């Protein structure tokens, strides 16, 4: 226990050294997590956009087919 306290105190400079390591770990992890979330968000958005586009295209195709059917009926 005493050894651990000695180690953590870093000759009395522990309260400068550990925050320096801590803030580095927190901010680097933070920017990494933010980047991953950003990527997930755009992937999801792109997926819904794409399926919406496909639906539009299908709808357009159906319209064209209906137009042709109507024309042939005439």
């Amino acid at each position: 226990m005493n050894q651990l306290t000695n180690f953590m105190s870093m000759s009395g400079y522990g309260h400068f050294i550990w925050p320096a390591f801590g803030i580095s770990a927190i901010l680097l992890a933070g920017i990494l997590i933010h980047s991953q979330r950003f990527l997930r968000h755009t992937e999801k958005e792109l997926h819904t956009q794409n399926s919406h586009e496909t639906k539009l295209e299908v709808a357009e195709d159906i319209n064209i087919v209906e137009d042709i059917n109507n024309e042939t009926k005439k």
Partner: protein
Amino acid sequence: MHRFANPTRFLRLSNMLQPWAMAMTVICLGVGLYFAIFVSPPDYQQSETVRIMYVHVPAAWMAMFCYTVMVFSSAAALIWRHLVAQIVAKATAPIGATFTFLALATGSLWGKPMWGTWWVWDARLTSVLILFFLYLGFMILYDAFDDISRGAKAASILAVVGGINVPIIKFSVDWWNTLHQPASVVKLDGPAIHSSMLAPLLLMAIGYTAFYIWTLSIRVKAEINSSKIRAIRMRQNTNQSPV
């Protein structure tokens, strides 16, 4: 370089690099931290506080490296309208800003016990603070216009003009009187630092660089997706608007 102007080709390269960068980050930071905290000796003048160097110096190097990447990619974006270069600059900015903030914060935590003050308005510290503001300015300008290409152009010009700050930071410790110590690793006559400290420092620096490449590849992918989303939206808007 023009080979990578194509986003698909660039994505393939970045997908290939990503697992390597991730592995390098974990290994180098793991081993580097172990040596930095447990193995490397205390300094004869600065005692244990020298351990702050292992997170401060790599962050400061990366702050300047990321900005240099931004200067060159912004210049490429302005000159050749290089889409990937534009995206690399945009994706680098928040990562570089994080490194710069870390350099300032850890430097402050090192300054208090060694210089007796958290902050001084001397050349090195002030020029790094300006670097931080340049990063913030770049990000704010980029998103400040409805027309994204105008924002990108304005931000790119700011990045290129602000490039003058990088050599100023590097040589500030030689040109002006400052509390900050002069360069001890990147010197013409070789590093003035013992290998027991140099080895963990270089490991941490490699780890930070790999971390940048890892995070950059994630952000570049996200930015390419964003531009695709914008393109789809624009197409939908033009389709929907009455002719």
